[in-house]
């Protein structure tokens, strides 16, 4: 950071303007949220909308409150969170490893390319019945769903990051007589870190899709289960509450990765 004393008056004015803009954006964000929630609450309060169908912010809060009191809140959140995280880490680690193998051999890459393309295009939900028959209806099935939903993207994105490494730097490594392994460790992996961070951001979103989808198909607990169950018995308060908790959790996880990215990519 530079010392503020060195700034000209013009620059200080510029900084002020930037700060004002930031404050405006943040304020407007909260205003929109407050407007939507307020309108929703009012319309249901004055029965312009049927809270039985649309629920309402106050009912969502009381539903979450009673879930908390009965101890169910952390049970369901914990299960979904565990499934999502497990699926996410397996997908990222396995995807990264497969990408390294694909990077190492152009032949393997060429051979496997059509399979990856088809698997990528396939709607994974189509595999639902197979998963149930092969893996059963436990947590492993949901984690498996999470993995297959996010792994292909992990493979393709990290591989693209590996391949995008600067040609000149690769020539340099070659000219120094670097082995394939040294090139990977000293050049390709560090150079592709920013792309890995991007992959993580997308993968975390897909992991949530996978775990909720998995819970729709097989589960007996978790947020996805609450949503499906709530829908079946017309408990819209429950559906809305679970959806709201999902929004918060997904947002937090994205935020954590964005923070890690900021730290890691600082040196690039």
């Amino acid at each position, binding site marked *: 950071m530079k010392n503020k004393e060195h700034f000209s008056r013009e620059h200080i004015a510029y900084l002020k303007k930037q700060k004002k803009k930031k404050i405006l954006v943040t304020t407007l964000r909260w205003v929109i949220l407050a407007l939507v929630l307020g309108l929703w609450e009012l319309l249901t309060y004055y029965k312009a909308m049927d809270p039985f169908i649309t629920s309402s912010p106050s009912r969502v809060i009381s539903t979450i409150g009673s879930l908390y009191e009965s101890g169910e809140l952390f049970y369901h959140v914990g299960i979904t969170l565990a499934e999502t995280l497990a699926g996410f880490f397996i997908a990222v680690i396995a995807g990264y490893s497969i990408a390294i193998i694909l990077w190492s051999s152009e032949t393997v890459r060429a051979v496997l390319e059509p399979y990856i393309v088809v698997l990528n295009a396939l709607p994974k939900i189509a595999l639902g019945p197979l998963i149930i028959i092969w893996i059963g209806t436990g947590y492993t099935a949901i984690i498996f769903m999470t993995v297959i939903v996010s792994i292909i993207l992990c493979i393709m994105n990290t591989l693209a990051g590996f391949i995008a490494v600067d040609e*000149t730097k690769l*020539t340099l490594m070659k*000219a*120094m007589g670097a082995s394939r392994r040294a090139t990977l460790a000293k050049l390709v992996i560090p*150079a592709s870190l920013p792309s890995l961070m991007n992959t993580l951001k997308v993968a975390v979103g897909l992991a949530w899709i996978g775990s909720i989808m998995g819970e729709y198909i097989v589960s007996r607990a978790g947020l996805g289960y609450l949503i499906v169950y709530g829908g079946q018995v017309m408990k819209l308060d429950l559906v809305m509450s679970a959806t709201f908790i999902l929004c918060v959790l997904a947002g937090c996880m994205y935020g954590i990765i964005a923070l890690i990215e900021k730290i890691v990519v600082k040196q*690039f």
Partner: protein
Amino acid sequence: MLEFKQISYSYHTKKGETAAVSDLNFKVGKGQFVSVIGPSGCGKSTILSLAAGLLSPSSGEIITGSGEFGYMLQKDALFEWRSVEQNIFLPLEIKRVNTAEMRAKAVALAEKYGLKDFLKKSPSQLSGGMRQRVALIRTLAAQPEILLLDEPFSALDYQTRLEVCDDVQSIIKSEKKTALLVTHDISEAIALSDKVVVLSSRPAHVVAEHDITFADTPKGRRNDSHFAAMFEILRKELGI
């Protein structure tokens, strides 16, 4: 030293075969600075790849001494995630000679050539000219005998280019290294070299060789009265 003896080399692509170099003969003596100039696309870089052993010739023989090669490229190719110092240590790591002694030598070299205050900095904090100097010190860190320079100045703006060019030449001379430079810049070749080798267009073979003997430094050469005449000769031989 380095000698090309009747070297031929062809590229193979799906569309066919392209002869890049044919019947190439020239010699770089120990401690000599030799420049190879030729029309663009004549296979100049191929010559360096052949010398470094990245490519093997279709026919002919390349005779090299016992020493290692150091390769310097058009772009500095510094690793942004490493400090300047860590960049300079890279060849030591790759060649598995990463000892305290070698590191100390590399640091001494960097300090000798004005990088003392930059060692802990990130490459992104350095100017283009400075970065290319770091690239040179990195090349020298593993103590190569022969330096292969692939248009190392062409990505720099004109003023920086003159400075870095003089800089690099004096460092190479004072470290008593043998150097082979490929370039398309006639004045650069005259200013830097003990000998200029002129290549034909593809497939490249040697059109002429000139020993440059007037003046000592690149600056002195550019100001010398023989410079213009030499330039004219080379220009005609290149057919520009």
